């Protein structure tokens, strides 16, 4: 099981954990889930599409991170996942 994470639980940040997986699965916990849950999922999907990743387990613990922070934390987590393997 390869896993990596990035981010913090500070206000306006999120902690993203990624694991190798046989399909795409996104789990989101957020303090603004009702207002922005869909948007958070969309940003994650867009970022994965950009990186051409079709299967991954993504767990987001969000404390109100804006889109750019979600994208950045996800990208770093994925990079770290790849580095663990290499």
């Amino acid at each position, binding site marked *: 099981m390869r896993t990596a994470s*990035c981010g913090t639980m500070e206000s*306006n*940040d999120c902690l993203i954990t990624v694991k190798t997986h046989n399909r795409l699965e996104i789990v989101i916990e957020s303090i603004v889930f009702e207002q922005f849950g869909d948007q958070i999922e969309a940003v994650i999907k867009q970022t994965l599409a950009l990186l051409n990743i079709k299967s991954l387990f993504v767990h987001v613990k969000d404390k109100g991170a804006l*889109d*750019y*922070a979600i*994208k*950045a*934390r996800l*990208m770093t987590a994925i990079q770290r996942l790849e580095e663990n393997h290499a």
Partner: protein
Amino acid sequence: MRRSLLFIPANTPAMMQNADVFEADAVIFDLEDAVQMTEKDAAVDLFTQFLNQFKLNNIEIVVRINGLDTPFGESDLNRIVSDQIDTIMLPKATVQSTALCEGLIRKIEKRKKMQKQIHIIPIIERAVSVIESYEIASFERVDGLLLGAEDLATDLEVERTEQGFEILFARSMVIMAAKANGIDAIDTPYTSTTNLKGLEMDSVLAKSLGMNAKSCIHPNQIDTVNHVFSPSLDAIRHAKRILEAESEATKSHLGAFSVDGKMIDKPIIERARKVIEKAKLWKIE
């Protein structure tokens, strides 16, 4: 021209999002000391994505990269030098590292087909850098020198004090080097975030020696620093009178003229022009 430069850790979204709220002239996104070793990758990713989403208007965007002698420095430059930033701040600068930095920046600008030319603010925080400061200041892309007194004190094996005698020579060297090259002399930050009186006194001292800006480590310091390093309303009024008198003198073909009984010659006129330029830039009047 800047008066205040605010350090902001580059790995904290909450602070980065508020970078332009505090009325500093420049914000220094810090990829170096403010970011742990294990988070250097996260900080660069966060910062680059941040620039994509946030357009910071009316504020100079400075990035303190990791030293070029570390595994991160060159990769920092490759990632962040772009039209979205203004200035690179180079830690522990020497003639050698400044030359290297400038060279790398030029290459990246060419490769990325950038519209902008990125400036450099080298940090003078080693004894050798103090000695080399004149040469460091002379590089084309360098438009300011920052004194880093805390690290310098370590290098000198001295204690930092409130009066600052131990850094007097370094301050003066940075000032001479900067002014000789027509660039900003930026003072070292004041380390107490609550003692605003102490900050004011330290800033006034720095200004009297010739510093024209000061870096800030906390938003609460900015108002004081901006105030100290801005021309006063009196200075602005006086400058206006000098320029008016100059224009009158020119009209009447008078060579020399005086204001309030003082002879006004070229350096004074130049100073007056600079004061007005600052007043306009910082919307003081």
